[in-house]
């Protein structure tokens, strides 16, 4: 799942995969602004067929947190 999340981030933010890790976040990536955050959330929801609560969308600010939130929805533990 982490790889998929990274790939989605890489495409939406136009950042190479190898520059992304668990701790890539809105703080470390300049491109991850509020507009792109909206795109990331929409792309993740579409890919995983889930719908996040507003609170979740506000919290999913790093690869790790995204993975955690999605795994809660899919009821499987993070890798």
């Amino acid at each position: 799942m982490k790889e998929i999340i990274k790939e989605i981030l890489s495409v939406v933010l136009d950042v190479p995969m190898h520059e992304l890790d668990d701790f890539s976040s809105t703080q470390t990536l300049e491109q991850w602004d509020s507009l792109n955050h909206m795109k990331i959330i929409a792309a993740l929801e579409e890919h995983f067929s889930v719908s996040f609560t507003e609170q979740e969308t506000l919290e999913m600010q790093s690869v790790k947190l995204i993975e955690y939130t999605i795994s809660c929805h899919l009821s499987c533990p993070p890798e």
Partner: protein
Amino acid sequence: MSTMSYVEIIKKNRELKNKLASEDYTVGVLTNITNHFLKDILEYSLRLSAINAIVEIGGYDNIVQDADRFQKKSSLIIVFWELINFMQGLHRLRPALINDYEAVKADMVHQIDLLMDLLKNTPLIIFNRFTNVAMSMANPVLGLLDKLAADLNKYMDSCNYRNVYFVDLPGIFLKDGIGLCLDWRNYYRNKSLYTLCFYKTYCDTIINAIRAANGQSKKMLILDCDNTLWDGIVDENGIDGIDLSADTANGAIFSEVRSMIKELAHCGILIALCSKNNSDDIDKILTQHPGIILSNNDIVIKMINWDDKVTNIKLIAETISIGLDSMVFIDDSAFEVEHVRGLLPEVNSFKVPDNLYDYPALLREISGMFYTAAQTTEDLSKQTMYRQQFRRESSKREFDSLDDYLASLDIQLFCYDNDLNIVTRLSQLSQKTNQFNLTTRRYTERQIENFITDAKYDVLAYRVKDKFGDNGITAMVILQYDLQSFTAIIDSFTMSCRIIGRNIEFSIVDHLIWRIKDKNIDQIEAVYIPTQKNVSVKHFYDKCSFQLLDSYSDAEKRYVMHIDNYSFKNATNNVMYANERDN
């Protein structure tokens, strides 16, 4: 588009951007909400059609100011003007409407006028009709917003804009379900009202209008007969064994399909039949069967024989002189459809759906591909003109030489000299003509009007008649004069493909020279700008004995000719002016 994921779209869009060499097609989006999902989805769907779109989303709630900025550079402007965010939100709009409905409406009308005036020269505006569907109240008495939407739409309709394509958003909501289209979570936080799903369907909806503006609308629908126009196989079941009634379930489906085809024909879409059958049988059905709905008058050309369909379709393209990429083909046989798709990928080929009840919906969808912005007299009489063309082609075979044949046609040319009454047709010639188009410069009605009223330009249009009938206004030349250097420049020279091959282009050049001789002009300049489609006119100016200037690149060919050196193809100027003598 709806089957592709957003991430896939973004990725593929980037790839295509680097591949397409065509000129940028600039799209500006004016909006009072947040629309950032639209950019990649729209760019990708246009780039798939080889339209190299660059979409710029305007600032949030900055419609009029952005209009001024965009109108200078955009070929297309899309307007998302949402009632929900009028006056920065319903919390203001509702009280204002209660307090003084007419004042709010008048203010909106004023803003609309301001906007549309700024955009009057934009080639195409896609404007979402005002709608209150997203926030309509369950209690129908509370209908002020509905009324406002209806009144504003009515006002815009009354303005008869010529460059506007209106989109009904509720139609899009219906396709996907309104719940999947609206994103309330993002609206209240980011003013982003619509979902990815909405934007994908939205782009599918508007693409036909944009393709039409880029000269890409389809012109001809080619249909198989058995199990495509009716239920059954004539050769096996006999004429009486096929179902042409509207009373059975399948019969009702095919009748509806035939009635739609009749409507398409009525609107100027060329209908052709291509079927493996005995042509006598098909003729009998078309002329004698009471349930057929279609008649020979609706059909431009019939290829009823036992040859393969690829050969037949190529022959249709040749006979009627239209490009394969202007054709749509429908057949019930997967074999035939795959054969055509494989060998003629430019033709859009569709198979009659396995679930027959989906067939009318497919045809309704396909009808969008034939969309053109404005309909002209030439569109409505197209069927007749192409049937005449078919007769011309047939009688050509009876002559020994092409010259003899052309002489026998008794061709007459009528010139429309800077005529404002035919602007719609002229813009259409500029937008839709691909093959005989020396510069492929696309002009809107407004731009044509400007040329006509500008003394530095001459817009000359030609109507062509011969013994088989009237071809309508089928050629146009735009001349620009530079009086200081005593030069005329051919800005545009376009001719509809339906009159190609009759040497009319040479008579037109003769006429141009006769005309400018009177204007104290010494020389005439011309340019050929190559596209994928106008190869056939690559040497046109060479044939007219223009002198090629070698100082320019291979791609673009520039020419000049001193008019004293010109040798006329016709001894006398026999072009008549339409305002002196016509019909």
